């Protein structure tokens, strides 16, 4: 089958989802009201609550949620064949992610722009709120550890990307100064920044750099990269945001659009054939079963709880008019689905023969981002005539910059959590910035190395990250469902995804628990148990909160009749 059909089918289905299903959900279920005074207007303060143009808000929302995860998940999940991954990404985006993201913005904007964490406390209960904090912490911890391993692997596999990856940080630092001190206008700075970045991508293959296999203190090259990355992330998370984070995010956002455009353009021109099997009947030994693992391997790109944090944390406070949430939330999810779809096409159509494909997907957890880079580079070469090494460098830089930004944002958020715990439990030192950052880095390093001695084990925790992320999405869906029940509106459009997620998450955790037990991997076994406990608590909370609300509604109806 030709990849162009795959692309058109996927994008077409998501477009239908946006034009038809999201209209139904927003108008009939959420009943968005153009006259509703959104928190951005009601509580306008110029700091958090600022009414923002919907296209800008969409760009901000989309670039905050799209990262390396929607590339990594599908690139691993294609091992079961491209059809399951394709279906889950497309239908997940339409019926799960879009509703979840738009719903999170709606729930928050109807509650004075409060975050989902706070809403969980108000609407579901205080216990649920504590679970929420723990789940967020685990998600951040895992995402940081996994991404550090991903970046380290990419830098080892593609040494030509080392220069542009680290050079991009220097470019961002310079841009940050130029803009902050108002030396030149933003449009000019944008052009200079993008030209500098792509200039380095051009030069990178001529000056490849890799660490020696054995470095200081007997660390392997992968371990050294991981340590270096965390040192960087710690410093970056301590710098003022305008110095590095802001210009980096801006350049990344532009890069995301250029990268997506290039990939889809190249697929259209090259029209490669899909070589990966539709359903892989001959999966390598040790590959877990498709159900439920597919649904936790692809989290971002189908549904991701992380989006709810962004949607309710910042997006809802800037919503100008309530109907905008359809474009910002739902279309933001569609954008991420499109990124995941591009990843699926790259890893299933980017190889010349089935044998080439099988050579990469010889083991579960293989493939991943390296397969995306290789496959995508082949498509870019065929479609746009780019040199293979340069195309690989380009895609590596794209993935690494995404993962890197997520890491330093994640570390910053983890630090806030530690500082909050410090103030809750009156631990003085934990409230200070530097010790809290060091504590956060320490936890991440422990996980990155604890999961596998040489750091390679980082990939083992990817499905665990998926389950935790889905649990977070489940909590958000629970909040939305309880709100809908309270308003006496149909609940199945959010309850069905919630039930599906909880089933798959719990099953996935049990299966992984068994495999960690069989391998004697006690570290991950314990981690899995903690997440399982959280999952069970979420299920209990969900059923009790829902039955309570439904009973209250019935009592209300009876008293109205009487």
């Amino acid at each position, binding site marked *: 089958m030709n990849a162009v059909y795959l692309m058109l089918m996927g994008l077409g289905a998501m477009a239908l989802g946006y034009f038809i299903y999201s209209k139904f959900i927003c108008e009939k279920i959420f009943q968005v009201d153009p006259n509703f005074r959104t928190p951005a207007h009601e509580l306008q303060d110029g700091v958090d609550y600022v009414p923002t143009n919907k296209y800008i808000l969409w760009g901000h929302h989309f670039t905050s949620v799209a990262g390396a995860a929607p590339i990594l998940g599908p690139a691993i999940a294609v091992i079961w064949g491209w059809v399951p991954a394709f279906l889950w990404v497309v239908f997940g985006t339409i019926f799960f992610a879009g509703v979840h993201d738009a719903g999170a913005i709606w729930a928050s904007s109807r509650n004075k722009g409060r975050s989902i964490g706070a809403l969980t406390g108000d609407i579901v209960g205080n216990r649920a709120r504590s679970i929420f904090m723990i789940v967020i912490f685990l998600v951040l911890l895992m995402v940081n550890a996994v991404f550090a391993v991903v970046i380290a692997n990419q830098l080892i596999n593609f040494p030509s990307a080392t220069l542009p990856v680290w050079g991009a940080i220097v470019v961002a630092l310079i841009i940050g100064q130029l803009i902050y001190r108002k030396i030149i206008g933003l*449009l000019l700075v944008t052009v200079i920044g993008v030209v500098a970045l792509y200039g380095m991508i051009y030069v990178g293959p001529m000056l490849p750099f890799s660490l020696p296999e054995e470095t200081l203190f007997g660390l392997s090259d992968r371990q050294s990269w991981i340590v270096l990355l965390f040192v960087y992330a710690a410093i970056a998370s301590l710098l003022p945001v305008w110095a590095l984070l802001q210009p980096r995010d801006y350049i990344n956002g532009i890069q995301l659009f250029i990268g997506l455009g290039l990939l889809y353009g190249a697929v259209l021109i090259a029209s490669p054939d899909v070589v990966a099997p539709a359903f892989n009947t001959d999966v390598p030994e040790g590959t877990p079963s498709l159900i439920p693992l597919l649904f936790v391997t692809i989290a971002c790109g189908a549904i991701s709880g992380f989006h709810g944090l962004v949607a309710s944390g910042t997006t809802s406070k800037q919503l100008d008019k309530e109907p905008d949430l359809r474009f910002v939330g739902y279309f933001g999810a569609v954008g991420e689905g499109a990124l995941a779809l591009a990843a699926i096409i790259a890893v299933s159509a980017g190889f010349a023969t089935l044998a080439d494909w099988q050579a990469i997907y010889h083991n579960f957890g293989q493939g991943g981002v390296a397969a995306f880079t290789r496959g995508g580079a082949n498509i870019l070469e065929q479609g746009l005539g780019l040199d293979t090494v340069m195309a690989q460098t380009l895609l590596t830089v794209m993935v690494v910059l995404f993962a890197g930004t997520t890491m330093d944002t994640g570390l910053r958020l983890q630090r806030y959590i530690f500082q909050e715990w410090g103030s809750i439990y009156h631990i003085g030192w934990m409230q200070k910035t530097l010790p809290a950052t060091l504590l956060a880095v320490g936890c991440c390093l422990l996980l990155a190395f604890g999961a596998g001695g040489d750091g390679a084990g980082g990939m083992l925790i990817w499905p665990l990250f998926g389950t935790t992320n889905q649990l977070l999405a489940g909590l958000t869906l629970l909040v939305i469902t309880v709100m809908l029940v309270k308003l006496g509106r149909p609940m199945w459009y959010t309850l069905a995804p919630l039930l599906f997620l909880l089933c798959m998450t719990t099953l996935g955790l049990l299966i992984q628990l068994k495999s960690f037990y069989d391998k004697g991997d006690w570290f991950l076994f314990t981690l899995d148990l903690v997440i399982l406990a959280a999952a069970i608590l979420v299920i209990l909370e969900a059923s009790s909160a829902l039955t309570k609300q439904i009973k209250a509604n019935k009592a209300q109806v009876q008293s109205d009749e009487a």
Partner: protein
Amino acid sequence: MKLDAIKAWFRQASFYAEEAYNAPYRSAIARAKREQDDLFMLLVFSEMMGVPNPASYYTLELQPLLLERFHDWHQRMGMEHSPLDQFRCC
């Protein structure tokens, strides 16, 4: 005519670029600025709260200028009512 159209397009493009650059970080930067301003308030009003300040001769001059912000500041610092004896804002 054509030049005007280009200028208008350029203005529109810079508006979107500025917004795209600033919107995500507006709150973080405003908060950082507020923290610096809060420290400055403490320096300016320190003498009135019994903290000796060698520069009080100069900061005295600034006090009327900052008075408007004083109420928000003391509330943000966790003092429900004005900490000053001489004059109170609430």
